């Protein structure tokens, strides 16, 4: 029985060959299989295993409204296009739910106030009018694929930008068995092709079921059977078995966030909290992808004081702020959190108090080594004659400009031509 080669199989094997050669050259003999007893997990005594930041990629699926995430209160076109859903200017002091000024032109909506300290600390950066520079798609599924593949849709590829980044760099901790984690039911496309990469829906519950008296023996049979098949099942099995062993040693349920940080009790928050525990456990995880769904706000955005979009943005911000506090209040590995979405939403509100699919959007970068406290932009304007196809915010900064700079300077990977093929990135000074 010969299973069909996975989509992009040739590409995967090329990637893993390159990854292997690189690892062999860089890490020498240390890249041997790690014995089960070796991972030493110590939550309290954290130490940096490498000079690379751990990357946490949050994808807001459904197209988040960038014009509410970072309100262009200095652009009168914004208020003209959104008579009932705009967030009021900071100087409209008679309105209690108005935006918080950032730089005289942009502001944070009240729902995102929890992120103000990180912005003031200059660790939170906002990028606006951002997206895929040469794309005109308004399809969620195309746009997500284009962004996560790292090609802007211009080069057919089955792998993802994060997967390729992991593949062309050796593990940051020699011998690491788990380098990429997608907190998801299925692997996110950005991680496709990544070595030692796996989907884990719930980091706190990842073990083998059934009779515990035979669990070790059954685990060995699973290993034997999967050792004899092709990828992707073979590699998924290897990583699954290693991950079971690794995660068993981290007690997620008793994890105490540092600095008094509290997370909410929702899936997105649990994912961030477990990610903090995972990063602090310092087992060599380099990239974590987290999905946050529900951003396709075609109707009833709500207002600056409450409603659908408010709730999404509040949950996003509150828990990102908790993560920031948790990760910076005590010594922990350096991190970068990237928050992105497939595109922004239509400038004008639609007939149902919502917004349809748009073009340019906003992106966040949060981390110890992010040169934040700024809104990076080349603002194209919101008046009709300034809009993309007369409808949407233009894209003036490609998302790859931001990602590439982080990949090069914070992840120490200069192979940008492989991570973002066919794209010549313009660095925007987003890292210190």
């Amino acid at each position, binding site marked *: 029985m010969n299973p069909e080669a996975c989509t992009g199989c040739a*590409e995967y094997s090329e990637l893993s060959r390159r990854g292997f050669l690189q690892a062999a050259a860089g890490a020498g003999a240390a890249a041997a299989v790690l014995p089960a007893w070796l991972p030493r997990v110590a939550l309290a005594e954290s130490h940096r295993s490498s000079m690379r930041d751990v990357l946490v990629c949050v994808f807001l699926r459904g197209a988040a409204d960038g014009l509410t995430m970072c309100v262009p209160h200095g652009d009168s076109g914004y208020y003209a296009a959104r008579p009932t859903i705009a967030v009021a200017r900071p100087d409209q002091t008679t309105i209690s739910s108005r935006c918080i000024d950032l730089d005289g032109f942009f502001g944070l909506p009240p729902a995102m106030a929890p992120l103000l300290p990180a912005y003031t600390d200059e660790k939170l950066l906002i990028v606006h009018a951002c997206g895929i520079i040469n794309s005109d798609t308004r399809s969620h599924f195309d746009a997500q694929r284009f962004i996560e593949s790292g090609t802007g849709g211009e080069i057919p590829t089955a792998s993802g930008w994060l997967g390729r980044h992991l593949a062309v760099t050796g593990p940051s901790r020699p011998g690491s068995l788990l380098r990429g984690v997608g907190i998801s039911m299925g692997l996110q496309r950005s991680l496709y092709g990544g070595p030692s990469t796996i989907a884990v829906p719930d980091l706190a519950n990842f073990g*083998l*079921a*059934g009779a515990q008296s035979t669990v070790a023996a059954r685990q060995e049979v699973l290993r034997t059977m*999967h050792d004899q098949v092709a990828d992707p099942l073979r590699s998924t099995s290897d990583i699954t078995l290693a991950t079971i062993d690794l995660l068993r040693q981290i007690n997620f349920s008793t994890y105490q966030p540092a600095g008094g940080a509290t997370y909410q009790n929702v899936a997105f928050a649990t994912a961030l909290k477990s990610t903090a525990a995972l990063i602090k456990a310092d087992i060599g995880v380099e990239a974590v992808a987290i999905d946050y769904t529900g951003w396709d706000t075609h109707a009833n955005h709500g207002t600056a004081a409450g409603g659908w979009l408010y709730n999404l943005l509040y949950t996003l911000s509150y828990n990102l702020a908790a993560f920031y506090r948790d990760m910076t209040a005590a010594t922990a590995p350096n991190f970068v959190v990237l928050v992105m979405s497939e595109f922004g939403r239509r400038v004008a509100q639609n007939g149902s108090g919502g917004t349809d699919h748009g073009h340019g959007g906003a992106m966040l970068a949060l981390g110890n080594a992010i040169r934040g406290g700024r809104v990076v932009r080349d603002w194209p304007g919101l008046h009709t004659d300034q809009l993309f196809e007369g409808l949407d915010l233009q894209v003036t900064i490609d998302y790859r400009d931001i990602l590439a700079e982080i990949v090069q300077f914070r992840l120490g990977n200069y192979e940008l031509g492989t991570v973002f093929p066919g794209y010549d990135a313009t660095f925007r000074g987003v890292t210190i």
Partner: protein
Amino acid sequence: MSRRKFWRALAGLSAATELGARRTVLASPPTGTGDPDPSALLPKLLNRITFGLNQTDLAAAAQRGYSGYIDYQLDYQNIADTSMPSRLRFLTTLAMAPVDLYAMSSGQVLTELIDATIIRAIFSQRQLYERMVEFWTDHFNIDIQNGQARYLKTVDDRDVIRPNALGFFPQLLAASVASPAMMYYLDNALSTAGAINENYARELMELHTLGVDGGYSQRDVNEVARCLTGWGAYPYVVGDPLSGTLRFRPEMHDNGSKLVLGHVIPEGGGQNDAAMVVQILANHPSTAMFIARKLCKRFLSYTPPDGVVKSVAAVYTATGGDIKAMVRKVLAPEHLADAPLKFKRPLHACVSALRSLSAECLAGGPIRQQLQLAGHVPMSWGPPDGYPDSIDFWSGLILPRWNYGALMVAGSLAGVTVNPGTLFAGLTTADQIVSRLNSLMFGGGMPESDAAALRAYLAPDPTSLQLQKDTIGLAVASPGFQWY
């Protein structure tokens, strides 16, 4: 490999996958010079058109022959399916009118439909029909956890998807355009003249008919949205039988003229605009190709050959979208003979284990919970594109697949019984037991590497009930069982 060569290789990706497919074909026994011998393809056919092999179906297929069995399955209304009414008897909301559904708890309504879907997948004799219901449920995806769909997906499933799953695509499309659950899910219920919401119009073309590269523009999205303004559903009013049924509000409809994909829709069309949109989309050559490719992907290969797709699209065009005729074309023995294996999605993997092991399963709930851990609860995919049919997505998480087999045999799933005593009656050696599992679960095609590992596990004490149970669980978890 230089970087340039590497990326050039990427550009030829689909070609590489086709090569992979051909390799698989070569690995199967040669079938002589002429056409493939269809009877040798029966286990493969059953793997493709059912939720998993079982002995009853294999015997029936052997009796009817390859095309006879396809015809039998396509003529689903004449398959008695005698056990279904009693298996579904307690799921009382399935037959309810919208107004009565609204009076129930939404949790009960949606849970019953999900559980019914699971029970039908396991036990219905109309397996190909249920696979097609699954196909269209993905195609016209409505997230059952979403707002009004919690109540109304039951109606969509019963009155839109199931009656048309093996009917004609234009009728299915028209029924979906008139589905209150869809009206709510993609916001058309909110779209009115001068205040349009283009969510549904876009997905109708991108996901339901033309495909993203099918040749429509932002202007077309806008025009189709205008055509569909005013359509929605009656809100729930206690005791009002109109609740949750289709509603057209003429005063909310944009009655100006429109231009859709080059077709002028004259002003004053009212309700007829929607019918014209359905007709334009159903007759569009991109729709024929899009539906044909998706069917080929589901039954044949992630990357079906263009020639096969075109031949199926030609059937669509020649028959006015006859789904049975398209399925028959897709399943032609020469197409199936060349088809590489596909990776089972979690529902398929879990149900195929239950079917092949002749498991009893009294209720859908315990299986639903396992599918939740695997990310594949029926009708619960949020975005409108439906659950992925892709190995890259599903192969990233295999732990739930390892676990549900073990839980089934351990008796940990309430109402689910797998009985080693019956399955292995009279068998005493590891060889015999693994051979039995091979014929039950794989139709004799269990990979030898899996079989050897199972035999070695069982060998120390082949009659130990615990080892026998573990072996069943491991066979369900085995890499070979994840493919169909």
